[in-house]
């Protein structure tokens, strides 16, 4: 018997999401007006994935399966929780909207398949498995971006995302193949034997191509060009979900590859990460400053936040390594709640900056939520974004490397740079008079519920930080 019963328990989150994926797809085949049923099932499915990952985490289940290619550890389960949780809010936000398109089951199936791909991705220890699961998370996201047939930008964004995404995938695959060629194995533990301090040109090229592929997937500059068009064109729920879940999973697997597969080459890749982090932060924030469209602004802001997380990757050396791993975990959780919330407010209010004029008088609850998300994205204590940045700065300070000090300096400068555009929205909401363009009456109960829950999570993230950091310390990657 090649596959043990334990392996089925290990695969529980994936098996549940596959099951619900198929059921939701079949709902579409058996009736026209089953949008509500499909949405209910999809929400239940993402909750079930969340609960199964939480149960595995609580019972301390861990181990390595399928010949070492698939691993369950607290680190993987932590990211499965983030992915499934954000999928739940994405499904809630998409329920009514996707019902109007008439293709609700298909749209929700795509969300669940991203969940499946992302949760496989964070558990993979085999390079080809990593490639397959990253594709499983990306291919449905192309369709999600292009899903809104009532807007031209949706098709345009989807097309741009598809073409650049396929090129990035082939670059990533080429890098993986070269790494496989040099080390003779796709297992990360075997790769670690080859990737020591002395890298041959081919190993270096493989590493470079692989990192470029990943940099595209997390929209790090200079591979970020698809981001604003894709997020502007995508349905709001898709932009909110895709800017959080696949990105968190990609950062997780990149961390796993670098720490488990290439610990010996750390001086090389931390330098690459430092370089990427600095460019990404500046590009994201400087372009975000010029946007009048809130969706586009948030897209560039998500580029900037990828830069902040990459700054933690640059600090994966010296005494700061353990803290840097924690920083990545805490930042992705903090980013997930605040960024999803900010995107979902667009569904309630609108995507033009003018829609926010005087919002505090017409719709105080939405205005307060948006204000919280914006302040959290800047990193004002005690909101969620603050803790992420705090951890990165601590990790950087302990790393003892001049380059990392420069990266941390750039992070501080960029935080200041980002204040005008985030606070511009808050200024519009409070100081401007409400006009006919002021939004706030759109959206439905499910979207409003998601926004308020995310706002509460953003506000009280500080209370979660103690259990969260205990969990993060036990994550077991370092």
């Amino acid at each position, binding site marked *: 018997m090649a596959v043990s019963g334990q392996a089925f328990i290990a695969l529980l989150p994936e098996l549940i999401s596959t099951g619900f994926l198929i059921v939701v797809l079949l709902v579409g085949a058996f009736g026209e007006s089953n949008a509500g049923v499909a949405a209910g099932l999809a929400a239940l499915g993402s909750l079930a994935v969340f609960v199964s990952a939480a149960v595995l985490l609580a019972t301390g289940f861990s181990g390595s399966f399928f010949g070492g290619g*698939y691993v369950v550890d607290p680190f993987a389960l932590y990211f499965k929780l983030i992915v499934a949780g954000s999928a739940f809010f994405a499904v809630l936000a998409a329920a009514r909207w996707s019902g109007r398109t*008439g293709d609700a089951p298909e749209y929700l*199936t795509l969300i669940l398949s991203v969940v499946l791909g992302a949760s496989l991705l964070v558990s993979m220890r085999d390079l080809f498995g990593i490639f*397959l699961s990253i594709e499983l998370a990306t*291919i449905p996201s192309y369709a999600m971006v292009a899903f809104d047939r009532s807007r031209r930008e949706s098709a345009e964004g989807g097309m741009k995302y598809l073409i650049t995404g396929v090129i990035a995938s082939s670059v990533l695959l080429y890098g993986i193949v070269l790494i496989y060629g040099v080390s003779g194995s796709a297992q990360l533990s075997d790769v670690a034997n080859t990737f020591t301090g002395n890298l041959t040109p081919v190993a270096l*090229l493989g590493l470079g191509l692989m990192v470029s592929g990943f940099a595209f997937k997390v929209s790090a500059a200079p591979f970020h060009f698809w981001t604003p068009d894709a997020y502007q064109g995508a349905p709001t729920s898709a932009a909110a979900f895709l800017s959080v879940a696949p990105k968190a999973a990609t950062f997780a697997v990149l961390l796993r590859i670098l720490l488990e597969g290439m610990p010996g080459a750390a001086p090389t890749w931390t330098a690459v990460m430092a370089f990427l982090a600095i460019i990404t932060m500046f590009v994201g924030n400087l372009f975000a400053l010029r946007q009048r469209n809130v969706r586009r602004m948030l897209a560039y802001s998500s580029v900037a936040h990828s830069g902040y997380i990459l700054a933690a990757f640059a600090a994966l050396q010296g005494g700061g390594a353990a803290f840097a791993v924690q920083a990545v975990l805490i930042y992705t959780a903090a980013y997930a709640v605040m960024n999803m919330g900010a995107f979902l407010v667009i569904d309630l209010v609108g995507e033009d900056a003018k829609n926010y004029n005087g919002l505090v008088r017409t719709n105080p609850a939405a205005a307060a939520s948006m204000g919280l998300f914006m302040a959290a994205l800047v990193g004002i204590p005690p909101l969620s974004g603050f803790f992420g940045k705090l951890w990165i700065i601590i990790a950087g300070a302990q790393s003892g490397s001049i380059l990392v000090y420069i990266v941390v300096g750039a992070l501080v400068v960029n935080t200041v740079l980002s204040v005008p555009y985030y606070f511009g929205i808050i200024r519009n909401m409070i100081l401007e008079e409400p006009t006919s363009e002021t939004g706030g009456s759109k959206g439905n109960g499910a979207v409003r519920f998601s926004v308020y829950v995310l706002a509460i999570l953003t506000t009280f993230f500080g209370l979660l930080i103690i259990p969260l950091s205990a969990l993060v310390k036990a994550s077991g990657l370092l």
Partner: protein
Amino acid sequence: MTVAFAFLAGMTLVSALGVVLSRSVVHSALFMSGSFLGISGFFVMLNAPALAAFQVLIYVGAVTVVILFGIMFTQRPQVRRYRTIINRQFWAGFLVAAGVGAFLAYVLSAEDWGGTKPGNGPRQVAAFGRDLLGVSQGAEVFTLLFEVASVLLLVAVVAAIVVSRRKMGQGIDRGVRE
């Protein structure tokens, strides 16, 4: 061995050039099957006959046929315009491609590949199947990859159908129009 390699490399490269340079999309598709055939020859030389068989069956056979069907159903005037865009950026594209090619050739030839031997892949389909389904020792991960690949294909089909449906509507446009 060298003669066979030169022949296969020439066939792959010439057909690949044909794909890019030919003016008709149908010719491009046919050239592509020639290029795939050359690659399956490489698999034979690398001791992976089962893989070569799949390459012929799936790529030379199925994929080419599907592409030809696709062309047949979607043949539109804008195909010509797509050609002119490529021609306008010919030199820039050519320089980038040549530069990348030269760089890769240099890096790959600088590496000492002495420790790497051609694989000894399964020769019988049955052995290949055992590998793929994880029954044989040391290949368990392929079970998982095999299953993931099947879900991936399902999801890709759903995604493709969702995107290519024509009319926007209020839940009444089930099924194929046109």
